[in-house]
């Protein structure tokens, strides 16, 4: 079975200017170690990463947004799939690592290891392009297809548990401001109002 790090190493090898959001958990730590950059926001709360990435993708429809989830986070945020199925932003790709475990919570099993298929749930919610992959080659093909498609890409990758990479010291508030500054610089939008006289009547 393929590890999360192997999937991420492939993703990083083709990474350009995507805006990335990761859930809390190992993928945040691993992506931060493999590709530290201001265009990534790490450790969105469990169950909220897909929704937050969807909001960002809807706000910036010309920019590629990628959300990294785990099976525990997807299961917690199932209702977001119904909204994703209706909105289908073409610039959003969700990558969910399914290792069947709450790896950051004592390695106890999630219910995906007991028969729940989050690809079937996603498709039933209207995320019609949802696919399951096993191995880097299949992941690479699915990623290419997701980026080229006119709908939201939703890739569930069967993943070997385990993590070798270290924690980074970046704090969430500093991460947010770096992320915002990066978006302001690359998209020409003003995200935060400068302190001073209000522009609101």
């Amino acid at each position, binding site marked *: 079975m393929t590890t999360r790090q192997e999937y991420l190493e492939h993703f990083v090898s083709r990474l350009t200017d995507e805006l990335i959001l990761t859930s809390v958990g190992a993928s945040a730590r691993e992506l931060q170690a493999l590709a530290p950059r201001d265009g990534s926001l790490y*450790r969105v709360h469990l169950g*909220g990463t897909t*929704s937050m990435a969807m*909001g960002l993708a809807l706000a910036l429809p010309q920019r590629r947004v990628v959300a990294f989830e785990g099976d525990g986070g997807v299961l917690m945020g199932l209702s977001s799939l119904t909204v994703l199925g209706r909105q289908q932003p073409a610039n959003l790709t969700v990558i969910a690592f399914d290792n069947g475990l709450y790896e950051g919570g004592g390695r106890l099993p999630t219910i995906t290891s007991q028969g729940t298929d989050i690809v079937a749930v996603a498709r039933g919610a209207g995320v019609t392009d949802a696919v399951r992959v096993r191995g880097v080659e299949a992941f690479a093909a699915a990623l290419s297809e997701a980026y080229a498609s006119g709908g939201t890409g939703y890739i569930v990758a069967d993943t070997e548990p385990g993590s070798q990479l270290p924690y980074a010291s970046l704090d969430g508030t500093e991460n947010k401001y770096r992320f915002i500054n990066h978006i302001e610089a690359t*998209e020409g939008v003003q995200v*935060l109002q400068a302190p001073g006289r209000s522009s609101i009547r």
Partner: protein
Amino acid sequence: MTMTNVATETIAGLKAAGINFVASLPSSAFTTVLPVIADDPEFLHVQVTNESDGVSICAGARLGGKRPVLMAENSGLLMGTYALACMENFGGIPFLLVLDHRGDFGEGDGYWYFPTGRLAVPTLEMLGIPYTVVHSADEVRQAIVDGSRTVEASRRPAAVLLGLGVA
């Protein structure tokens, strides 16, 4: 459907505040306003199915430069509490909450509004979210503008509760 006074004032307030992104779930005070928002090209409207998702979608939209509002019944505030609390991991992300304050003092429609309604204000205070409660449709426009000004200056959420007498 004829626009009610609260609907007209809500739209006017949102536009005066520069709000251009609306995530919502229905509540009785929003019955006529949400379809109008959905059809108005000045708003990007996202119908959500859980207020927690609405919090996260608004936060993401804000990072992309939108000025979002989450419109929901106050019971939805409880659904969104976890997501709102977790936004502090990023030092807060600014957007407005406009909440239909069912179970307000004097509510006569049903006992089921009170268990969550009476928790709305303590929940906002627990989360450190500034708020105001309005009781007339005529107060709604200015309350939304004031709420947005609070959001922008504090760089964190603020809430407008539409209390009894508004709808």
